[in-house]
């Protein structure tokens, strides 16, 4: 893997860990029904208490935790094996991730009418990861 690809993979790994930590924090609050530290007013509470935050009975942060764990594992595996399939895996997960966060941001704004700061940060994080995956793929193709 060349230096540029290595750097991009490092950033993806670190951002995945950051996303995972945020997801774990919000998930414990969903499961224990406790308050969330939130800088966006009562938005986090409104989101936590809404049934829309539990699609198919699954708390939304659990989806985030699973997704970020998957991204973290894939980017870790890329340090051992320069396999294009792993990068496509990151791209695929990132694509699903941005669709999911876009849907949830829409749900928050228009249906729940409350914004959870953590979900917003996580959405931006997922977009950045997806962007980095696209950049990595384009670099691989050029090489």
């Amino acid at each position: 893997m060349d230096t540029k690809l290595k750097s991009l993979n490092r950033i993806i790994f670190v951002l995945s860990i950051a996303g995972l930590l945020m997801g774990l924090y919000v998930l414990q609050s969903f499961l224990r029904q406790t308050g969330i530290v939130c800088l966006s007013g009562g938005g986090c509470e409104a989101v936590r208490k809404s049934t829309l935050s539990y699609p198919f009975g699954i708390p939304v942060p659990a989806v985030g935790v699973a997704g970020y764990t998957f991204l973290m594992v894939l980017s870790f595996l890329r340090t051992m094996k320069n396999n294009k399939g792993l990068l496509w895996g990151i791209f695929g997960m990132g694509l699903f991730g941005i669709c999911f966060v876009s849907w949830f941001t829409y749900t928050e704004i228009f249906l729940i009418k409350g914004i959870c700061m953590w979900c917003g940060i996580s959405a931006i994080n997922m977009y950045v990861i997806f962007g980095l995956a696209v950049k990595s793929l384009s670099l691989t193709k050029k090489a």
Partner: protein
Amino acid sequence: MKLTSETKLFLGIFAVTAVILTIAIVLMTKPAKPIAKEVLLANATHTIGPKDAAVWLVEFSDFQCPACGQFYPVVKQLTEKYKDSLFFAYRNYPLPSHAMAKPAARAAEAANIQGKYWEMHDALFTKQSELSTSFISSEAARLGLNMEQFTQDMQSTTLETSITNDIAVGDAIGISATPTFYLNGKKLELQTIQDLATAVENEFTKIK
């Protein structure tokens, strides 16, 4: 298997994160210290029961919050059952997302000036789904309040002080949701509405 320097770097980052996460879990699951009565009851104006009671319950609530409305009958039941042995304080914590929460809190404060705080408080919770400006006026009239004075008091800035004091206490102790209950200074983590009654009853059993 020989690990590359990049793999080792990632493992290092992961290990550091795991350590930080473990510390965070330990700190977050540590039972919080009870908050002193003077802090929780600072400037508390709306209370029921003997001040020196061994069991005291403080609620931070919002008249428009549906969960607060669901807890209301349990609180009422407890304050009636233990009227001689439970000290209860109601503190306003109107959430910005609830447009009628602050006007409702002001209505209760305005009713308080005419000695009908708890009557207005009960009306606001029992008919929470009807909460509106006209509902507040009709309830004030039903309670036999002097409407001219009530309307004047509702606009008064001094009413705001009591509500602002409650919010300031809530903010200082980190309230992030309503209702939040403190039983003898300890924050209650309630899964169901009935858990509140159980917690209070357990506290009475403990002190016997």
